[in-house]
Structures are given as structure tokens and as C-alpha cells.
């Protein structure tokens, strides 16, 4: 029983961790009464035990917090440092950068690099537009088709369902880099190379990962609610839109964020399947900028800053959902 319960598919991680809490306490004290006894003893005398210790306890507390703060500050500085350099350089004029090097504080901060990024013919206007469109189309498609499929897997019975779901799970093991060459050949054969459709087609019809996560959540919908709506004559689409989706808003928000981050940042596939500036996405444009203006770091840093800024803002705005999404992703 225990072996099965604790098979760490991650899906059980929450539960198994809970189960295991008891284990060490039981093991080291033998029967649980040791635990109870301690509790009982502790309550009556909190005052007298604390007072004599105040001095050393205080010192230890400050020291403990000091070490914690040291770790936190080092982590924050090391994390933010590169971003700071990137932004600083982006705001430094080319001449100041050439004269004073990378550590100089922009005096005065200039926007010439950012402006240059947008005014040059192979600048960032097209890539930003292409990326936004690509992410929007993939997002809508993946959400709609994944919700439909997840609902069918979770709430309907039809022949082949379980086998098919197993196939979907198996495809989670297929990484992008393994399929990039055959996908390139297929879409070239279809005449779609260097088109917008090539950017979105492989992803727009739904994602097995999203379907898997949604199915887990959709299974928990109380059937009384569904039945009640069905009896009222609601069709499947109405049921989905008015009941299933609102009930599962948290996981859907999580998936929206994951999808936006993944596809805003995607690089290999867009680089391979497009050529030239027409359908260049922002990551490919950044890479091209770096190889084209090899030593013009002020311009290149303006490009990287621009590529990262939208997601950093998104991250700060949706920090709660992103933090929570970790719990959802563990279900995998």
C-alpha cells in the first residue's frame, strides 16, 4: 500500500509529503504519546523559560536573521546585476560607452539606442508586431482546443479514450529539438516556410501538457452542477463557458501565463522556419542584432532589454499566480 501511494509521480507529491509528516515523529519517539507529553509540558511555563535566555537568544536571533538577510541580499544582487548592466548600457550613449567602458553610469541617460532600435529599417517594429501576433494566435488556439479536449477526457466516455490519453501523455516526452528537422521538412513541403502560419501551426491545435493539467482539474467538477445545467437544456459549449471555465479559473490563468512565457521566448523554431526580416520574432531579431552589430553593445543591450521587459512586467504583475503555478506544475 505504502509503496504505491508514494510512487513519486509528482501527482502524489503533495499527498505523500503529508503522509510522511507523521513518519519521523512516530519513528524516533516510538509511540505518539511522547509527542503529546512534550506539548503538555511546554504550555504551562512559557514565561520562566524564556526570561533567563533573553540575552543569548536575542543574539542568536539577530545572527540567524543576519545570515538569512545576507543570503537574500546576495541572491537579489546577483539576480538583478545583469539586468541592471543591461539597462544601464542600453541608456548609455555610444560615445560615452566607447570612452568610459561598461561600468560607467549613463550621464546623461540617453534614448538614442532605443530610438535607433525602432527607426532602423531592420529594427524591432516588425519583430514586436510578429511576436505579439504569434503569441496571441497560439494562446487562443491552445486554450480553446485544450479546454475542449480536456473536458472530453475528463467528463465524457467514448471508445479509445483511455488509450488516446495515454498517447497524449507519451508525447510529453517529445522535445522540440527532436522534431525540429522533420517539422522543417513538412512545413517546407507544404509551402509554408517563412510564413506566419509556419510560426503558429505546430502549436495552435492544443498542447498535451495543458490538456493533462486541465483534465486533472476538470475531473473534480461536481457532477450535480453539470447535471443541473444539462437538465436546464445547456449545450456542451455553454456548459464549458459558464461552468467549467469559471470553476477552473486559477489553472487556466496559470496555463495562459506559461503559454505566453514559452512562446514569447521561443527561438529555435522561429529561427529555423523563417528567413529574413519579414517574419522575424523578437528573439531572432535580438540574435541577429548581436551577430550583425557585434561590438555595438549599447544597441544590442537595448534590444535584449526590450525583449525581456514585457515578461518581467508580466512576472511582477502576476507574481502570485506564477508562484502558485509551481504547485500546479508539480502535478505533472
Amino acid at each position, binding site marked *: 500500500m505504502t509503496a504505491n501511494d508514494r510512487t513519486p509521480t509528482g501527482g502524489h*507529491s503533495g499527498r505523500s509529503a503529508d503522509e510522511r509528516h507523521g513518519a519521523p515523529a512516530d519513528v524516533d519517539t516510538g509511540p505518539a504519546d511522547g509527542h503529546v507529553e512534550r506539548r503538555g509540558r511546554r504550555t504551562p511555563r512559557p514565561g520562566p523559560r524564556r526570561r533567563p535566555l533573553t540575552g543569548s537568544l536575542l543574539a542568536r536571533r539577530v545572527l540567524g536573521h543576519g545570515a538569512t538577510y545576507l*543570503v537574500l541580499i546576495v541572491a537579489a544582487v546577483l*539576480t538583478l546585476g545583469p539586468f541592471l548592466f*543591461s539597462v544601464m548600457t542600453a541608456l548609455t550613449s555610444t560615445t560615452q560607452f566607447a570612452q568610459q567602458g561598461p561600468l560607467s553610469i549613463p550621464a546623461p541617460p540617453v534614448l538614442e539606442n532605443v530610438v535607433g532600435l525602432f527607426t532602423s529599417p531592420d529594427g524591432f517594429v516588425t519583430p514586436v508586431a510578429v511576436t505579439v501576433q504569434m503569441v496571441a494566435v497560439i494562446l487562443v488556439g491552445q486554450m480553446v482546443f485544450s479546454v475542449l479536449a480536456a473536458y472530453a477526457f475528463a467528463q465524457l*466516455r467514448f471508445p479509445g479514450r483511455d488509450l488516446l490519453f495515454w498517447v497524449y501523455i507519451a508525447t510529453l516526452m517529445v*522535445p522540440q529539438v527532436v522534431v525540429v528537422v522533420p517539422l522543417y521538412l513538412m512545413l517546407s513541403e507544404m509551402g509554408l516556410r517563412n510564413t506566419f502560419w509556419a510560426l503558429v501551426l505546430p502549436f495552435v491545435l492544443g498542447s498535451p501538457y495543458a490538456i493533462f493539467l486541465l483534465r486533472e482539474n476538470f475531473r473534480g467538477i461536481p457532477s450535480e452542477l453539470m447535471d443541473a445545467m444539462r437538465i436546464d437544456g445547456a449545450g456542451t459549449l455553454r456548459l464549458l463557458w459558464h461552468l467549467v471555465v469559471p470553476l477552473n479559473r486559477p489553472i487556466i490563468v496559470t496555463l495562459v501565463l506559461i503559454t505566453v512565457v514559452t512562446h514569447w521566448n521561443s527561438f529555435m523554431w522561429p529561427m529555423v522556419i523563417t528567413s529574413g526580416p519579414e517574419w522575424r520574432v523578437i528573439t531572432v531579431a535580438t540574435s541577429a542584432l548581436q551577430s550583425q552589430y557585434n561590438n555595438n553593445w549599447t544597441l544590442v543591450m537595448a534590444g535584449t532589454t526590450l525583449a525581456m521587459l514585457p515578461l518581467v512586467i508580466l512576472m511582477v504583475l502576476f507574481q502570485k499566480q506564477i508562484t502558485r503555478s509551481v504547485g500546479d506544475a508539480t502535478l505533472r
Partner: protein
Amino acid sequence: MTSRRPLLGWMLIAPSLIGVTCFLILPVVLAFVVSLFRWDLLGTRSFLGLDNYTSLLSDGALLNSLLVTALFTLISVPVSLAIGLVLATQLVRALPGSAVVRVIVVIPWVCAPLALGVVWKWILQPSVGALNQILGVRIEWLTDPSLALPAVAFVAIWQNVGYISLFFQAGLSRIPGSIYEAARIDGANAGQQLWFMTIPLLRPTTFFLAVTQVVASFQVFDMVFALTGGGPQRRTQVIASLIYDEAFGASRLGRASAVAVILFLLLVVITVVQHRWFSRRITYDMS
């Protein structure tokens, strides 16, 4: 209760089934097929049998990439898990101000590895790079053959620790404080608590992270592409870089597909083995 509606079920699944079949299953099958051909970007092709595999083995390209990828994984995964855990133990203490740090450390994770790679490429430049200027040295971080791979691994660790710490924070918050209280009364110090309680109790989290991080690091591409492009002397040519270079650099799609097939089989084996290994360990501990 689920309801029995075959036609509706298939209709709802149809779009994603087309997607999965055409853009995941078919390409994997096609990768096997293409790997048996000499096939270039212009479309000319001739059947070779297993020649792509034998040539990959004999000219050392595959072995080199496997070693580079394994080394990258062996550096980046344990280090980022260890740092992530330490960071998490400090963040869950929830001192004033730690909420801000919790957000800050995850920022690199949402950024494009490609863009971060470009930023770090600049920071690590020998002459104009910020790092060498701060340290007052002139180290060729990305072009010295013995430093390039550790440097790339460092940047990957830098990007991932915050994200990894999120999982450990979630795992830590599920451990009730009462058992630490009990341990403290029994005289266990902080080190003992970490080693004998926290780490064993976090095993499900660690397992999940180890599997996903190893699998992810076997697929790393963007960051390597931006930082080194696979050089110097192929010292950072990970498997994905080899696939890209063979296919779109050397126009050898057959050879690239052979590498892809090997990577795919390797990932399947890694996933299965890790799963077996960890479940046995946990079963053993619990018995």
C-alpha cells in the same frame, strides 16, 4: 459520473488529436525515416541505411556532444538544486522583505534564454565585459576551451535557481513546523535538521526537479547558441547544437535526424531509469 457520448467526445478531441498526430507523432516517425537517408536542405536525398549512425560514431561528433551535454548536466543540475534549496530555506522564513526577493529571484526564469545569453555574453567579454572590469582581470570566459562549458553552466544555474527554489519553498511549506519544534527540543541543530529531516522529507520535490531539470538540460540550446554557438573547438556543442549545426549549418538533415533519434531514445531511457531509481529509494526508506 461521466456521460457516454462517443460522437461528441471525438469531436471535442479532434483538433488536438490532429495537432498531436501531425506535429508530434508524425515528426518523430519522420525523424527515424530521414535518419536513414542522405538528405540536404535542397531536398536531394538517397538511401543510406545506418551509415549516418556509423559515421556519427566514428568521427567523434556524437560522442563529443554526449560528453558535453552530460558534463553540462552534471554541473548545472546538482549545483542549481543545492543553491535553490539553500535559497528556499531562507525564503520560507518569511522575514520582512523576503517577499520582494522571492519575486526577484524568479525574474530570470521568465526571460528568454536567448536574450539572457546575449546579456551574459556581453558581461563575460574579455575586454569590455563588466565581469572582468569588476574583477580587474582579462579572462577569456567564453573562448578559453577549458572555461567555456563551466561558464555556460554557470549562466544556466543563474537562470534556474530562483525557479527551483519556488518548488523547494512549496515543498518546505508542506512540512509542519511542529516536527522541527520536536527536533529542537530533542537537541537537533540546524545542520542535523536539514540533513535528517528537511532533505528526506523533500524527496518528492527533489525527484520531480531532478527529472525535469536533467531532461531540460539535455535539450538546452538557446543559451548555448547565444553564448558560444557551440565553440570553442566544439567544447560547448551540446546535442541540440549538434542537431542544429548538422541540419542548418552543414545541410545534412539525415545526420541531424540520426542525432535527434539518439537524443529521443536517451531521454526516454533517462526518464524511465530516474523514475525506477527514485521510486525504489523511496520504497526502501519507507519500509
